[in-house]
């Protein structure tokens, strides 16, 4: 009974010991905007705001939990998680459930999971661990092995087909390799090779993927089919103007012209109602988030932690840029949600696992350095 207050204080301090408040505040701000937008997008029909708030609560708990795991512990998850993810992807390839022409899900009887989601974390974790392990003896062959570690899951996911997730997973892995010091001449060579391979890649693409790229170049060729999403989203953004139509006043949103409006196309809803001003604010918040992540990566004490932090941070960027780019019509439509904004529990859990990792890296750095 002595010093109850002190005990509580110490307990509370311990609870929040691994929370990085700048990062938390930035994500909370983006989520607040996201929650309001989900409300606007679903107010006429499914009312998803409370459900999304619940998702956010769960995701925050997971973040808290992950942030408490020290980086060494995280490192020990690298191989098991990667192998698990890979096995599940193979299982999807073999026994997956087809939904809308894409095999992305694996049935567990009581529920179904999307293994590619695991890879979004497992991939940078694995590669960061790999480069960390061979830090002292890094040779060209290590980059080749890393490329293979990246290519197999990427190929499996792209084959599902799920180009959006493949890009995110591939991006996260590539950032690790890039930050680990992939020689510039290889990077230049890759870019040149990619340019040369583009026609080949075109030949390998699925029809719907080709169509998306074609309709991006000229959406009006298919105004009621593939071009419809882009056209309607672009109209929503453009008609929002400098200051937006006002919260809950977006006609494109509320008259159901925007497809997937609470998930992948939520940015169109936000942009229509808040205009250029709102877009600027949102891009600013993402910049803060990425900036904070980069600060954490730059200050990280080990190769593993800085590569992981850098890759996760740049992963957030990939998410945000691809999503806003596709909704505003400068990138092809791929299934990438807007981080912390789009409705959906799975994506939130993955994102907050990433945030948790960043927090863990940052709050454990002194312990490592000693």
């Amino acid at each position, binding site marked *: 009974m002595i010093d109850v207050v002190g005990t509580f204080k110490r307990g509370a301090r311990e609870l929040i010991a691994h929370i990085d408040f700048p990062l938390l505040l930035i994500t909370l701000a983006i989520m607040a905007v996201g929650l309001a937008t989900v409300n606007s997008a679903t107010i006429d029909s499914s009312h998803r705001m409370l459900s999304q708030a619940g998702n956010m609560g769960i995701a925050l708990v997971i973040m808290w939990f992950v942030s408490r795991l020290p980086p060494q512990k995280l490192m020990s998850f690298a191989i098991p998680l990667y192998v698990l993810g890979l096995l599940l992807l193979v299982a999807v390839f073999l026994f997956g459930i087809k939904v809308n022409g894409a095999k992305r899900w694996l049935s567990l009887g009581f529920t179904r999971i999307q293994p590619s989601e695991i890879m979004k974390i497992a991939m940078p974790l694995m590669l960061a661990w790999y480069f960390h392990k061979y*830090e*002292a*003896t*890094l*040779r*060209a062959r290590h980059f080749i092995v890393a490329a293979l570690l990246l290519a197999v899951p990427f190929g499996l996911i792209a084959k599902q087909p799920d180009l959006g997730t493949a890009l995110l997973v591939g991006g996260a892995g590539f*950032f690790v390799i*890039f*930050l680990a*010091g992939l*020689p510039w001449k290889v990077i230049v060579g890759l870019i040149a090779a990619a340019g040369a391979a583009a026609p080949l890649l075109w030949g390998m693409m699925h029809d719907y993927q080709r169509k998306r790229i074609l309709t991006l170049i000229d959406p009006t060729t298919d105004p009621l089919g593939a071009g419809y999403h882009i056209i*309607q989203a*672009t*109209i*929503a*953004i*453009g*008609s*929002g*103007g*400098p200051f937006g139509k006002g919260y809950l006043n977006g*006609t*494109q949103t509320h*008259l*159901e*012209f925007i497809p997937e409006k609470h998930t992948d196309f939520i940015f169109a809803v936000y*942009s229509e109602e808040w*205009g*250029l001003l709102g*877009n*600027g604010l949102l*891009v600013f918040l*993402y*910049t803060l988030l*990425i*900036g904070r992540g*980069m600060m954490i*990566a*730059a200050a990280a004490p080990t*190769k593993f932690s*800085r*590569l992981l932090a*850098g890759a996760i941070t*740049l992963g957030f*960027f990939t998410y945000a*840029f691809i999503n*806003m*780019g596709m909704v*505003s*019509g*400068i990138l092809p439509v791929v299934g990438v949600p807007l981080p912390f904004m789009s409705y959906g529990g799975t994506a939130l859990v993955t994102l907050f696992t990433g945030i948790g990792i960043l927090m863990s890296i940052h709050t454990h750095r002194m312990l490592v350095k000693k």
Partner: protein
Amino acid sequence: MSDFHNPDSDLDRFRFRLGIAALLVLLAFGVLIGRFVWLQVVQHDFYRTRAEDNRIALIPIVPNRGVITDRNGVILARNYSAFTLEITPSQTGSLEETIDALAELIDIQPKDRKRFKRLLDEAKNFESIPIRTRLSDAEVAIFAAQRYRFPGVEVKARLFRQYPLGAIGAHAIGYIGRITDRDLKWIEESEQQANYKGTDHIGKTGLEQHYEFELHGETGYEEVEIDSGGRALRSLKRIPPVSGNNLQLTLDARLQEITEQAFGDRKGSLVAIDPNTGGILALVSTPTYDPNLFVDGITPDNWKELNEHPSKPMVNRAINGAYPPGSTFKPFMALAALEMGKRTPNQAISDPGYFNFGNHQFRDDKKGGHGSVDMYKSIVHSCDTYYYMLANDMGIDNIAKFMGSLGLGQRTGVDLGKDDSGESKGVLPSQEWKKQRFKKPEQQKWYAGETISIGIGQGYNAYTPIQLAQATAVVANNGVMFRPHLVNQIVDAKTGEKRPVEPQPIRDLKLKPQNVDVIRRAMVGVNKEGTGTRAFAGAPYETAGKTGTAQVYSLKGADYKASAIKKELRDHALFIAYAPADKPKIALAVLVENGGFGAQSAAPIARMVLDYYLLGKLPAGAAREDDAAVEDDNEE
């Protein structure tokens, strides 16, 4: 790659690469912001409009078509609202099954199915198409109770055009029908596309076509907010339609009806004009047809019957039939002679019963001739020899010049059809006409011998009944000419403002009053002591008239015996008249195809018309006025 691992340089390289990544991030976000500025500032107006277009649908509201009434207010064309059962094919599964199921509830005839199929072929995108028109209240109730079973089927109130008098005056009133590609072109040329959104009927002939853009009115709009599925959510704005203007005719429907009855089953035409205004009192072409058949889309059977019938009911003989005027031409010839100084009234000829020209003998229809014939007698007794000589003396171009001034051989410009191309010009023979009419040089030359029979209204002469009526009206009105017209005034449906159509004469021939008087006295003589005496026996008013008989078949010198000739080859009977002779109120021309002598079959019709118009006297056997009154069952 360095051979030695150096943690510090490793960290520096990492931070350098992170810095490059940060720059790429800023660059990429900069591109995004640039894109947003482009969409939301530069292109904002464009996208705002696009969003509005998305959101708002303009639903046209078709105006009420103007009503057509006769000079006394009798309704000739009107609209009635009726319930129709309509199917929107895009919202219905199997059309056959739906119609079969509907047929169990509501009487659907094979002809309804046929019409539906036809309309389905013509229909634009997602229109609803009527399967049954004119539902009874009971049928509406039966369907309403079962509505849930029939998605895409609904009861609608539509306006239908109706011609209450049916066949009476059909050639004047015309009819409306569904818009075809040709009509669309007309609408485009008239720059009326916007105003015809939602309209699916248009005037096809007669007054309905001529005054289409007066009758149609201005289409209204309802601005409706719609969602992406096209469902109307709420009305934002409504611009009501403006009803079409009403037409008040100069036509007398009762007179029209009596005249049509007078023709019986004979083919022919009568045009009666008020000489003081040019207003047409009756415009008859028999046989006629029921314009109501066309409103909903005429059935192929009906169309075939009308179109292929040997008596050609669809042809408007009043403006499209060109007939030799026969002896009705003589008063105009006489007037021409007086005006041009070729004859004096008292100048007499001696008629031997023929006129020799070259080696050809032109015969009078009275053997031995009429003896001494002056102008009066030449008209009263219809002496051919007098006019053979006169024509020869005048020459063809003088005749053509004067007859042309009376409007013969020219389109009158009567307000029927889309433009005056629907009206026939007839033939006003002249040297110039022949040159243009024929191609071979030997045919192009006018021979003086051809002028002779022109004098008695034969030869190349061919005029429409409306031209003859107009020429008669001009003479009756002392040379002051009006354009014949059917619409007295156009009445604005909203303001009630009345706009007269043809208030001014188009020409004054400046005829010498004493000359006109000579002709008048002679034409009065026709009905008192000449060829029209029998038809006008006991008339309490004084009439001026002239009989005529036009050859259809050249007899080449043989005697004409009606009974010996097939009916289609018998002569046409003609009669022109105006009355009262001293102060004319009506001028007319009658033509009975294959009617034989004008005095026998054409003049009695003229008598009936004048008796009714001047005295209100009904011919024996005519229906009483109240019996013929319009049924008003569907009037709203």
